[in-house]
């Protein structure tokens, strides 16, 4: 909008969202640089998940636009947004409970390979060895390969989250949106996830991460935006944000 800076992959431009009389998002302007990890922090109810919902087409903004790599996402359907390279991990895991862990991870790979619709019913699942082995290697990455034949519905909450992450990673998205990816995980699993997310970063994947765990935020983020009551009240490098008195008041005062 203002600059033609090639490094900006996601531009949330002046987004407002109201629910009835509630201003869930006001004047949100956010620019995310290619390959960077952008953290969004803020107290519960600040509007963090709403912001991601606007990005992936679950909610339409009341005004404003979201532009990803030259595509205007606003007005696009969720599957179209995914097809241009945006994947999301939800705050409450969205998985296929009745399918095995391996199949949960294979399904997104079909959308990536065959597009949003394909009558690929003359192919046999067993001949899709490329996708199967890729799914296995992604499961290896998130540490779930031992459970690949288990029903996904029976995984623990933390494991579901890791599996959902694997479901996103197999698509090699250009933008990955993570809504509290380590909530419900043990300290050990949280650290494994941090390592994993660091490794993805080396592959050049851009990420937005919403997180309450400051250890996670400060280990991963290149830039942090602080959201409170639907507004960005501070933005900057982790050091700048940590030092900001407004943040300490709004965030530390409101966190659970």
């Amino acid at each position, binding site marked *: 909008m203002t600059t033609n800076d090639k490094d900006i992959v996601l531009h949330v431009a002046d987004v407002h969202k109201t629910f009835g009389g509630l201003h869930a998002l006001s004047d949100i302007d956010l620019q995310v640089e290619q390959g960077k990890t952008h953290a969004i922090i803020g107290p519960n109810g600040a509007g963090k998940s709403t912001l991601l919902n606007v990005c992936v087409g679950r909610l339409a903004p009341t005004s404003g636009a979201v532009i990803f790599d030259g595509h205007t996402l606003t007005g696009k359907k969720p599957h179209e947004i995914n097809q241009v390279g945006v994947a999301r991990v939800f705050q409450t895991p969205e998985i296929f*409970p009745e399918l095995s862990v391996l199949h949960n991870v294979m*399904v997104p790979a*079909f959308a990536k390979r065959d597009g949003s619709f394909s009558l690929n*019913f003359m192919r*046999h699942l067993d001949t899709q060895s490329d996708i199967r082995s890729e799914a296995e290697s992604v499961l290896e990455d998130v540490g779930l390969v031992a459970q690949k034949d*288990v029903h996904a*519905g*029976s995984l623990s909450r933390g494991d579901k989250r890791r599996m959902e992450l694997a479901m996103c990673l197999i698509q090699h998205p250009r933008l990955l949106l993570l809504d509290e990816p380590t909530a419900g995980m043990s300290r050990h699993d949280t650290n494994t996830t941090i390592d994993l997310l660091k490794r993805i970063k080396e592959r050049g994947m851009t990420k937005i991460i919403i997180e309450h765990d400051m250890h996670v935020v400060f280990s991963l983020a290149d830039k942090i935006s602080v959201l409170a009551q639907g507004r960005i009240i501070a933005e900057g490098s982790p050091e700048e944000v940590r030092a900001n008195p407004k943040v300490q008041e709004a965030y530390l005062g409101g966190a659970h």
Partner: protein
Amino acid sequence: MFFMNRRDILVFAGFTILVLTMPIWLTPTGAAYPALMQTFAIYGIMVIGFNILFGLTGYLSFGHAAFLGVGSYTAVWSFKLLTMNAIPALLFAVLLSGVFAVVIGYVSLRRSGIYFSILTLAFAQMCYSLAYSVLTPITNGETSLQLTLQDPRVIDLAFTERGSGLPVPNLFGLPMTGLTGFYFCAVILVLAFFLAQRITNSPFGMTLKGIKSNQNRMDYTGFNTRPYTLAAFVISGMYAGLAGGLLAVTDPLAGAERMQWTASGEIVLMTILGGAGTLFGPVIGAWLVKYAENIFSAFNESVLHNFFSFLPDGMEEPFVWVAALFVGEGWHLTLGLLFMIVVIFLPGGIMEGVRRIGTLFRRRPDTSDGSAVSAKQQPAE
């Protein structure tokens, strides 16, 4: 392209043998006569198709009998206008029911869950009343659409003289009566099963399962779910049309009652009874319902008196009186009872019972398999 793994081959071979040897293994039950076995084969096709929509994709249609009816009417018209050959009749039946399915599916699939079911029910009832009264020139209303001696049959009559009696549907001259008729239906059932097996084991089938499991996730995973659900709807509608066409091939007559909502309900019942989502289950369910219908609706009081004659005199009467409620016209009571018992004790249908017995035999108390056991028992969230 035609890859099958060992399990697929076993399942397919097992099914084929089961179907083709029906005249042998059904003999002890007294059901091994062509008319009933044809019904088994035809309703097998019906529920295999229905299962692709309901069992795989999770959309419960309450109007699938409409497509059955469309298939029957189309086939009879093909007999009347063109030829008594079964192949064109079936092709037209499948095509036209497919067209109906595109229209009905396109509208109904704008909703899911109970609203989808109600929409399909409404459409089917519309089709029923169209057939029963509005479109009588095409459907012959109450009296059913039948062959007549004056039918044009342009293709047949271009090659042969008009005979004196009503002609019989045939396959390039081979009359579709008796066991020949059954084997014709049986081969088509096997092919229908093969296609359903391909679909189930393909990425496409996996996508349908994903839609059933979590349609929301599918949207955010990049799938355009609407055309997938429509494809499943149309495929299952075409299966129903094929079944309807076969009903006409084995008995060239089409009536509106075939499209009534009770007929649609029966299809749902068969599928759930056998085990929705499995390949075998719905077919077993269909066979059981059709067999029970045949047995119980044929019972009458004198049969019951014979059956209970071992009881002392005073006891016999009340037993016969109670049992009589459940047979003959009242056989639907039996069906309802059977259905309730299965749904309450085996929510996964008869196939779940088979699986349970299977696991009972395979692994006795075996602690190393704790993960698989807990996988079943733990709720999703």
